[in-house]
């Protein structure tokens, strides 16, 4: 079996293990037999049924999809900028989404509910992308440095908006808003998961369609053009897909750091720079990593729940450092 095949198999196994433990474990104790009966639609205790089908299953699904979205987004940004430090939130998506969410949670209190918060976050994220791209495209061609600068500045602006709202808000609302910005899949339901799934599948497919041109882009824009890529079109599409994926991920799950930076980078170190391998293997890895991290977040200090972004960093950083050391040794 090839290296790639082995990797894919290993990651699928890991994802399966992560998903099973995500379904079995949680704040409440549900016997494995009850979990199985609930999943297969057999007669079982109604509360176990609700916990498994309405809480854990959508949550595991949402974690996997968020992992996929963030990883693909990060992979695209790293390819576009030819920089392994690029990450999904580079263009201000996260602070735009945070401002939307915090606005929903503080100014509108609990009136809007979870879906309302998601909607506001998505609008905020898209607004940030919109502003950044409008500025970057105003100079004609899409200039990387203009794009990044605009992203940083817009990010700072929206960040200031978040601070302003938080400083004026009631303590309860502030706590909810702060927790949201740390990233949590606690309230992921089927509606938002469906939207996330649609965007992740569409974005993943579109990125894969660009994979050969992304490979050529690694040689430089001019070289990619000589190899048949319509460089400007490829770049604009990839930036758009990457930003949209990040916006949808951040609006359902809050700001989960690290996954979109490290999984693509790690995948590149292990499997090389070919995006036809990198995109699917990275997506599998991102899904497994986030499902695993979310399960740990739920059970580590049971019944207290940790922000999943904290877990991704605490577990991911040491792993990544080991990988980094081995890879460049």
């Amino acid at each position: 079996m090839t290296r790639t095949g082995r990797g894919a198999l290993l990651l699928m196994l890991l994802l399966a293990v992560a998903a099973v433990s995500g379904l079995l474990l949680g704040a409440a104790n549900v016997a494995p037999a009850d979990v199985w009966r609930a999943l297969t639609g057999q007669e079982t205790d109604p509360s176990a049924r609700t916990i498994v089908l309405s809480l854990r299953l959508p949550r595991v699904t949402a974690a996997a999809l968020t992992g996929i979205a963030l990883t693909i987004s990060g992979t695209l940004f790293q390819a576009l900028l030819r920089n392994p430090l690029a990450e999904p939130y580079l263009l201000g998506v996260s602070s735009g989404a945070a401002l939307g969410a915090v606005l929903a949670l503080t100014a509108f209190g609990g009136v809007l509910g979870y879906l309302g918060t998601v909607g506001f976050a998505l609008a905020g994220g898209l607004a940030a992308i919109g502003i950044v791209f409008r500025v970057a495209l105003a100079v004609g061609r899409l200039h990387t440095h203009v794009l990044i600068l605009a992203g940083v500045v817009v990010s700072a602006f929206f960040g200031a908006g978040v601070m302003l709202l938080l400083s004026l808000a009631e303590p309860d609302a502030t706590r909810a808003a702060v927790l949201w910005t740390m990233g949590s899949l606690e309230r992921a339901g089927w509606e938002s998961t469906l939207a996330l799934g649609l965007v992740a599948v569409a974005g993943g497919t579109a990125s894969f369609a660009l994979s050969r041109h992304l490979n050529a882009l690694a040689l430089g824009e001019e070289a990619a053009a000589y190899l048949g890529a319509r460089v400007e079109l490829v770049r604009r599409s990839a930036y758009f897909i990457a930003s949209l994926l990040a916006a949808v991920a951040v609006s359902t799950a809050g700001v989960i750091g690290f996954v979109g930076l490290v999984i693509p980078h790690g995948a590149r170190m292990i499997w090389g720079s070919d995006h036809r391998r990198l995109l699917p293997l990275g997506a599998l890895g991102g899904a497994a990593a986030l499902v695993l991290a979310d399960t740990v977040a739920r059970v580590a200090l049971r019944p207290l729940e940790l922000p999943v972004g904290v877990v991704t960093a605490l577990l991911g950083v040491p792993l990544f450092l080991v990988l980094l050391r081995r890879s460049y040794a």
Partner: protein
Amino acid sequence: MPESTGDRGDAAVYRLEDVTFRYPSASAPALRGLSLDFGGAAFTVVIGPNGAGKSTLVRLLGGILDPSEGSVNLDGRPLLSWDRSALARRTAVVSQDAPPEALRVSLRGYIELGRNPYVSPWAPLTPRDEEVIGNALTWAGLDHLAHRPLAELSGGERQRAKLARAIVQEPGVLILDEPSAHLDFRHALWIFDALRERVRDGALTVICITHDMQLASRYADRMILLAEGEAVAAGPPGEVLRSPALASTYGCEVRVESLGDLGHSVLPVRARPRGAASGASSPIEAR
């Protein structure tokens, strides 16, 4: 197989008519009133001092830049109207930049990039693609290195890999920007030999920019001397090297000696004081 436009090895493939190109921020045009034909199975070298417009010419032929005035035609069609992948199946460009160090790809994976204009990401390579890649590896003498990471190869091996990548595009025209820069004798000779052989087989039109006048005069059918964006001399290498335009273009007294089969040696004797050069003499019609 994608349709090929125009016959391979046909006469007049590229035709530049009165081409002027001006970079947006520059005061003087990089190319001015350039009229040139490239075609047949011919090996053309373009020489000229730094800043003469050689690299700009490469970008124009590669379709990266559009002329400010005049027209560039490929196979009788304006280059502007060419679809990018169709163009990449017709013309391959080996530019100067080295592949980035951070690129984690095997030599074979790198050469496979040359098949981009032919393949889709959704399907595996066809046996024909594999065959073309295999042949290019053998041609470049890189078979034994196929699975090595690109970053581990020497400069000479990497330059051959770039050439193999371009050949995998199965182009009718191959454009090279200083392919022998920074290479030792052996690798430089290999590159010119390999190109000459493909041209002789009638398979390829080569347009090569170089500073190495001895190799250029030894291998080329035709030499074009660019100065300040104009073609000031064109013709058989021996004639161009002996024309008074050479000395005035480079602002340098030169001694040119015939080496028989080995072309000509061009030895710089002394630099002329600035301003003493009689300018880029009268530009000739370079056809």
